[in-house]
């Protein structure tokens, strides 16, 4: 907590000065918050680089890491919207599976094969809007609604493919799954998956920080009744954020389908929601709502991907990977708490 006392006292004497000081302190804090887990991420990268005899920081491996983080980044971006309003979306993994199934099934029809991408994204959006409608209009708890749709949509995903793996080795736009965008031929290229993820982050940032809707999302998370009294259509905001989360889960499904050329209603996207939520929380977004930034989410998603990649790279066995991942997550948050000590609580 800043000392209002001091600023209040100083104000009459030199209001400009006090205000400037206050603004500066705030800005420092904002940077600390935004930078967030970046130090942890860097530490992990360097650690893995050393332990893997310099295999981590190679162009190829970095490419792999960002590619592996892409789908989770997209899901976590949607989750950020939801958590900013103080909600949660447990159904993203199931929605991803259903969307991928719907997309791949459409892709097999020669006539409208290329439509599979919008179909996948729309499928996701529709499920998301259903979630949002239940939460906003019937005033049900987000946790229970999305827990219900976690199960129900999973069932729908399985029904779509009659419980088999749908695969299409010649799915249109497959390049987004495995190709890379060449910037300087032969030297710099970025995996398309990562390009999409970055675009999603950028657009999310624009929406959250540069539009009226963004302010309304933060307001609903900060104080829902105040938002309602200020004339904000809280229900519309809620339907929007769950819609976005669903839509991005649909996009994630499309990305996964393009990457794997296949989808399975049961196996795809299992417990992705936990990874997405972890990324958001690691990124410093508060569960209570109203506080957080999309850039933090990006860092959080990268931490998770680096952890998975690095542990395999240095040859840690599967079992120990579990143990270490769990401890790193707790450790990272504890470190963060320690670092932020004294500044705003989350």
């Amino acid at each position: 907590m800043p000392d209002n006392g001091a600023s209040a006292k100083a104000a009459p004497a030199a209001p400009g000065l006090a205000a400037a000081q206050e603004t500066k302190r705030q800005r420092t804090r904002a940077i600390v918050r935004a930078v967030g887990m970046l130090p942890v991420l860097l530490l992990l990268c360097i650690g893995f680089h050393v332990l893997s005899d310099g295999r981590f920081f190679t162009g190829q491996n970095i490419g792999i890491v960002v590619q592996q983080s892409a789908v989770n980044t997209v899901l976590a971006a949607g989750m950020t919207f939801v958590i900013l309003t103080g909600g949660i979306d447990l159904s993203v993994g199931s929605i991803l599976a259903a969307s991928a199934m719907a997309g791949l099934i459409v892709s097999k029809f020669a006539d409208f094969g290329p439509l599979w991408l919008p179909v996948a994204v729309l499928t996701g959006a529709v499920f998301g809007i259903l979630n949002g409608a239940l939460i906003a209009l019937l005033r049900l708890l987000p946790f229970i609604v999305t827990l219900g749709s976690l199960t129900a949509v999973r069932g729908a995903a399985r029904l779509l493919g009659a419980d088999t793996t749908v695969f299409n080795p010649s799915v249109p736009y497959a390049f987004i799954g495995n190709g890379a965008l060449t910037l300087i031929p032969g030297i710099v290229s970025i995996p398309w998956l990562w390009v999409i993820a970055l675009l999603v982050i950028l657009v999310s940032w624009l929406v959250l920080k540069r539009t009226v809707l963004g302010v309304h999302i933060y307001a609903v998370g900060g104080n829902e009744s105040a938002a309602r009294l200020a004339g904000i259509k809280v229900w519309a905001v809620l339907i929007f954020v769950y819609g976005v989360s669903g839509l991005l889960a649909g996009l994630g499904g499309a990305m996964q389908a393009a990457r794997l050329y296949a989808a399975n209603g049961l196996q795809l996207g299992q417990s992705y929601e936990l990874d997405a939520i972890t990324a958001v929380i690691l990124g410093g977004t508060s569960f209570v709502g109203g506080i957080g930034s999309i850039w933090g989410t990006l860092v959080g998603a990268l931490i998770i991907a680096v952890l998975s990649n690095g542990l395999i790279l240095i040859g840690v066995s599967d079992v120990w990977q579990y143990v270490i991942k769990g401890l790193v997550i707790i450790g990272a948050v504890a470190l963060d708490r320690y670092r932020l000590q004294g500044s705003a609580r989350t």
Partner: protein
Amino acid sequence: KELKSIGISLGSLGNPFFVALSKGAEFEARKTNPNVKITTVGFEYDLGKQVTQIDNFIAAGVDLILLNPGDPKAVGPAIKKAQAAGIVVVAVDTAAEGADATVTTNNVQAGEISCQYIVDKLGGKGDVIIENGPQVSAVIDRVVGCKNVLGKNPGIKVLSNDQDGKGSREGGLTVAQGYLTRFAKIDAIFAINDPQAIGTDLAARQQQRTGIVITAVDGAPDIEAALKDPQAAQIQASASQDPFFMARRAVQVGVGILNGQKPASTVELLPSKLVTRDNVGEYKGWTSDRSQ
């Protein structure tokens, strides 16, 4: 005695293998009695859930339980309970202690032929990775079979066998990406099932690594397609299973026991056949209808 009602508990119904299994069981059951009531459930690799399902089958009063046991030993007590209620229990795909009969692919042999193919291809010399999966008995057996073969060839070096490809394309892709970065030279990869093999191939193609022999076990529809696909040239073989037939046999055996015909041996091991790029044309696959 007529088969009126049958309960089937399988690993995971989202897995095409088990779907083929359930189709086979259904086909055979309907053949014996067109009005048979069939309940098929997946236990999602949760032992507790499987025992619960068996209890529910007992309550529902089924005549026959077809079981893909979560663990060869651990479901023993539950099986006893079902048998005490007068229900015949047949295990499929994985052996189960105490079951009236077991029909399964010889998973050890499947691992053996799949890895023997690698040994032959490499001429008995090279660096091989065993890409492991979820530690269920079928997977454990395949790895045992593979190790049997590789162990006999001193020229073969196993680089790693402790990563879990989760039995899925995605898991295979992720694990293989790590492997390919970690090891500069890999001659062959044995994946414990088909989806992992395909994921592994995708990783290799992405990193433009060639000359890796990838083999697997299952003979699933997607590996069939891969074996015919010139782009997936590194996927070279899969030791096939025949879930449809396996389930039919299991139901046949079960109905036999219901009518007092004890099978010759309680365990019936169905041999696995290796499907390669050369013979994939003749492979009948899982989904083709066979009312043989």
